[in-house]
């Protein structure tokens, strides 16, 4: 299971401090999610696209992610633009196009795509461990950070474990179907996965105690805030301000 598709690269965005990028992503998300001016939303889509191009992400991977985001949007386009009318223009077709619904679907599609692209360009371009590290700098509670860290660390281990159990079942001739046997078998697979995870957690914690764990999770590599990070933050603040002005002008 390789999850950090975009984390490694040589673009200007990959080189930035994760703190700068995460702050930029949060500010941008809030602004775009709450905005409702057309000019601003189209401009935001442009900004996000520019960010993805700057990050030089693999186009095919970006498209795959967008496809996933837009399956939800497709559902909106099917459901939102229609309204039931009392006296249909054509008999048997009691639906009419609702312009407000169309606008709503378009607004949500714009926002969703702009924000998904921005997350790919700004956050997914840092390895996840560095994102945790950035959160640690912002005084995120230690306990929450540890859950984050262990969750991500053991996700891969458990995914392999699951596949091992799954292969074991298939080797013994298990074919899933819609029957009690299948559901009971899956429940036992799940139960076994949970029991093994529980035991693993116990061993991990004992190993941590052996190494003197006392509630602090230390990070070994440190960030150094550089001039380019400051410049990026300044530029990004400018972009946000422009979008904000664009939104105000339209209102």
């Amino acid at each position, binding site marked *: 299971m390789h*999850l950090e598709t975009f984390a490694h690269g040589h673009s200007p965005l990959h080189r930035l401090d994760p703190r700068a990028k995460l702050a930029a992503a949060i500010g941008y998300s809030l602004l775009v999610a709450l905005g409702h001016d057309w000019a601003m939303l189209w401009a935001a889509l442009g900004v996000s696209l520019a960010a993805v191009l700057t990050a030089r992400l693999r186009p095919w991977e970006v498209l795959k992610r967008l496809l996933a985001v837009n399956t939800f949007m497709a559902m909106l386009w099917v459901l939102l633009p229609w309204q039931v009318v009392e006296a249909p223009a054509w008999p048997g077709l009691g639906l009419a196009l609702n312009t407000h619904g169309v606008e709503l679907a378009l607004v949500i599609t714009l926002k969703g795509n702009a924000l998904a692209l921005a997350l790919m360009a700004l956050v*997914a371009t840092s390895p996840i461990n560095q994102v945790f590290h950035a959160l640690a700098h912002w005084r995120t509670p230690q306990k929450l950070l540890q859950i984050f860290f*262990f969750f991500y660390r053991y996700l891969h281990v458990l995914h392999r474990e699951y596949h091992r159990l799954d292969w074991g079942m298939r080797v013994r001739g298990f074919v899933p179907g819609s029957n009690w046997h299948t559901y009971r078998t899956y429940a036992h697979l*799940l139960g076994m996965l949970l029991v093994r995870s529980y035991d693993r957690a116990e061993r991990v914690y004992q190993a941590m105690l052996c190494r003197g764990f006392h509630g602090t999770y230390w990070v070994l590599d440190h960030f150094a805030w550089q001039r380019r990070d400051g410049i990026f933050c300044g530029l990004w603040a400018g972009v946000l301000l422009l979008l904000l002005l664009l939104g105000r002008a339209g209102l």
Partner: protein
Amino acid sequence: MHISEGVLGGVVLAAGAGLSLAGVAVGLKKLDYGQMPKVAILAAAFFVASLVSVPIGPAKAHLVLNGLLGLLLGWGAFPALLVALALQAVLFQFGGLTTLGVNTFNMALPAVLCYLVLGGLTRNGGQRMPLLAGFLAGSLSVGGSALLVAATLYTAGQEFLTMAHLVVVAHLPVMVLEGVITAATVGFLRRVRPAMLGMA
């Protein structure tokens, strides 16, 4: 069951974030450092389990399992789901940063309620009671989440009414499936590792 970015209004987003923050704070307060790896690794196990697609009639469904998560982690379900959803947002762009609070709350609240109401029944009782409690926990927490998602969507406007109905109806078969799987898993854990359900 993610609500995408850009659907909800500022008030609902802020309310979701605030409620989730409170839930996560309670969850973290109730857990000591010894339980951190347990919460995290079980959360990871649930994440992996949710990738499994189980046949149900002609279709296949992914398991949500928030009921079982609630039974095993209690209030820890809040931080566990927050972490899982945050990583989904960052890694796959499912959901997003602004909807993180709402999505966490919609998934975690029914899980914690099931733990508070049904958790005791899975530990005690005879042969049938724990399985029944497991079934109820599995189906009601998914059903509760679907209702919360539908209600949240409806706050975004009249236009979302059809979609809200659809979310609830689509989850009816999932409720049965989740109930069956959760009951069978509770039965399995009672035989194999009763300590995980909090039994002495």
